[in-house]
């Protein structure tokens, strides 16, 4: 199943991936990481197509996509 992996050390919680995902797969974690930021998480993992659009806009190269 297509999926993304968010590197919570790199993610700064900017939400750009959230709006980039055409399938609204991504949301923000309610818990902050050791960095002080709230990282992105998959909220509808089943909808992910592995299209990589989220990764394209991520400024922190925090997303890897698997298919």
């Amino acid at each position, binding site marked *: 199943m297509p999926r993304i992996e968010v590197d919570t050390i790199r993610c*700064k919680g900017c939400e750009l991936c959230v709006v980039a995902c055409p399938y609204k797969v991504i949301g923000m974690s309610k818990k902050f990481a*050791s*960095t*002080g*930021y709230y990282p992105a998480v998959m909220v509808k993992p089943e909808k992910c197509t592995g299209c990589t659009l989220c990764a394209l806009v991520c400024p922190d190269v925090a997303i890897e996509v698997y298919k």
Partner: protein
Amino acid sequence: MYQGVIMSGFGGQGIISAGILLAYAGMTDGKYVTFFPAYGAEMRGGTANCSVVISSEEIASPVVAYPDTLVVMNEPSLARFEASVRKGGLLLINSSLVAGKPKRDDVKVQYIQANEIAEKMGTTKIANMVMIGAYSKLTGAISFEGLKKSLQKVFPRARQEIIDLDSEALKKGMEAV
């Protein structure tokens, strides 16, 4: 009376404005004060810290190498500054964000769940005020009145509700210790 304070945390935690508030309140109380921010090259996400001196006598150096009080707002700050605290000094720790424990046993340590307290009041943004309130209570270096009077000076463009909220947070901080 002489108090050298270092306050340290993430950028965005309001470290700088809390430091300025301390200094302003000291001045309002009729003390000599200096404030010095450590400014980083990064805009955000880095650490921020500042040094405040409050003294009944003229202040020579504004550099606080060995703080009488260290206000710790995040984990890395504890590691960085713990060793420098003067023997018998005070370590004020925001335990909402700082899991680690200090190793020093020759200083007074006080934990405050500043983020939790602030969150209950509606926003974690005022956790810094909670810490300042606690500091004022514990050291007596500055008065609550001084702090209150200074809020409007430090945030000249803030609306009255915000000022009131800050003031409330200061109180909660005082009550927490």
